[in-house]
């Protein structure tokens, strides 16, 4: 069972995140890069599957030089090797282009399963997994909160607002995960030391067979027309209890789908 986990480096959500006014892309220099939180769950799930079924876990990350830090972190959680797709031509690629580039890079790796987080904390499009599966011509099993592998097929529980659907596909397949799926592990000191020696293949666009006319800001299929700072938080709703306060609160929570 060889698994590829897609890992994206994103600006730390704990810091102030900015867009670059020049080209409306994320200003990656403005804050520390960390592994996209949901990708840590994807890594954990891959490691758990590897512990059960054997095989290798490969990290695939597309990103600039500093993404190396996140790749090392993923390796120090226990992944075996990594592929780092890094090319200036990819700068500003939108979700579709990124999915295309990742699909091309996956052509350099052998795998039975691709796992990724269901969305990233910076762009939040949540479409890369689906687009990637389309490019690869593979089944997509999205929003998994449980993954089981049985010989040649994979079965997941897809989380829904009401409960879950059980979805199954034959391997190879693309699975995206939600945070309910597991509790990501920490690296350990031994794994940190070992991570240094694990192979990281560096790919440029040409190495992955990426047509540079199809990627990058200039060729993007979507365009950021404008952006503005989020408005300051509005004052909360005050519920006055005139005998029906409890009901009002319950209605409010139900409307927000908390109940």
């Amino acid at each position, binding site marked *: 069972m060889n698994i590829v986990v897609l890992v994206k480096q994103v600006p730390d959500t704990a810091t102030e995140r900015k867009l670059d006014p020049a080209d409306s892309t994320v200003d990656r220099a403005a804050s520390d890069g960390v592994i996209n939180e949901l990708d840590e769950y994807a890594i954990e799930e891959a490691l758990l599957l590897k512990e059960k079924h054997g095989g290798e876990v490969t990290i695939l990350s597309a990103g600039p030089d500093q993404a190396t830090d996140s790749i090392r*972190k993923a390796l*120090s959680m226990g992944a075996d090797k990594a592929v780092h797709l890094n090319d200036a031509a990819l700068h500003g690629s939108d979700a579709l282009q990124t999915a295309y580039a990742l699909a091309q890079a996956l052509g350099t790796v052998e795998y039975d399963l691709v796992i990724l987080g269901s969305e990233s904390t910076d762009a939040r499009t949540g479409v890369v997994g689906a687009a990637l599966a389309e490019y690869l011509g593979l089944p997509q099993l999205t929003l998994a909160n449980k993954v089981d592998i049985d010989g040649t097929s994979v079965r997941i529980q897809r989380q829904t607002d009401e409960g879950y659907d059980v979805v199954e596909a034959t391997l190879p397949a693309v699975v995206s995960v939600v945070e309910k799926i597991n509790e990501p592990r*920490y690296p*350990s*000191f*031994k794994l*940190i*030391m070992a*991570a*240094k020696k694990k192979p990281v293949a560096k790919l440029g666009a040409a190495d992955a067979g990426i047509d540079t006319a199809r990627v990058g800001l200039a060729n993007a299929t979507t365009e950021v027309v404008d952006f503005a700072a989020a408005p300051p938080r509005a004052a909360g709703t005050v519920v006055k209890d005139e005998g029906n306060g409890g009901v009002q609160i319950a209605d409010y929570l139900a409307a927000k789908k908390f109940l």
Partner: protein
Amino acid sequence: MDFTLTEEHEALRALAAEFVDREITPNVAGWDRVERVPRELVPRLGELGFMGLTIDEADGGSGGDHLAYSLVMEELGRGDSSVRGLVSVSLGLVAKSVAAHGTPAQRERWLPGLCSGALLGCFGLTEPDTGSDAASLALRADPDGGDYLLSGSKMFITNGTWADVVLLFARTGGPGPKGITAFLVPADAPGLERTEIRGKLGLRGQPTAQLFFDEVRVGADAVLGQEGGGFSIAMSALDKGRVSVAAGSVGAARGALESALAHAGQRTQFGRPIAGFQLVQDMLADMAVETDAARLLVWRAADLVDRGLPFATEASMAKLFATETAVRAANNAMQVFGGYGYIDEYPPGKYLRDARVTTLYEGTSQIQKLIIGRALTGVSAFS
């Protein structure tokens, strides 16, 4: 000279920091109130590799150097000194001594467990009547047909009631340091009683015990190092141990500073954040400068250890300055917090109570000055 950490050191520091932020900090006040950190933390720390730093992988350790160890101690000290102390003692004083002086059989018996956190060690030097003057200790180890019978008591033993093994210092010969031998005593040996010492000002989460030995029988294979070589084993353990306490104190000082900074930025008096008052900045600046200075002393000492150079005086300097810094920083943090610092919902009080013991144990501040003074003048003020 380059103070940048290597990628591995930085990753280790980040790991320890993340562990502290996620699993220690949210529980600190609660553990302090019930006067106990969970025992399960020990194997958890072992899993992360923190109980086996600097010990060879061949012995079950996780490898790494003393800078790595110091970085982890700083983060744990920032989180909870009770947790940091468990590691300082079991790894820093006990496992390291077994690794340095143990026979292959002793290493095999104790090190894999100590490094994984399956076992915990304690360090039995202090007695009710001998603290600073440890070379006068009285607990007897009398030869008895190839074995030894241990009789006497030990005081203030960190990890005492939890430990699986006691690194014990006992008198096998005449008075003074040359009459002392080190033993590795299984904590379940018949005749060994342990009672918890209650009512500590700080470090409430970790167990501190009094140990009573009533003709506890151990074989000659329990002797660590040479008969009569115990005092130098104790002193070399404490020399390195001081780096660990110092590193933990840097963390505590930093934690106090960080909490004070956050509070000063949020608290408004006289129409503006108190962070803007010069007298408050005076306290914050002192805390920041002393914390950084203490860290540099720790890193220097760790670097000397790692390069195999003499480090005892530098370790004493680091321990003296870092522990006194932690006390001052925590006291300043309490001042910045105003009345809120005085209640245990906020961090300064615990930092202050925990820091207070660090200028007392592993050699009081006065004893550190005597060690430094002896090195400077060539004259020992001890005797």
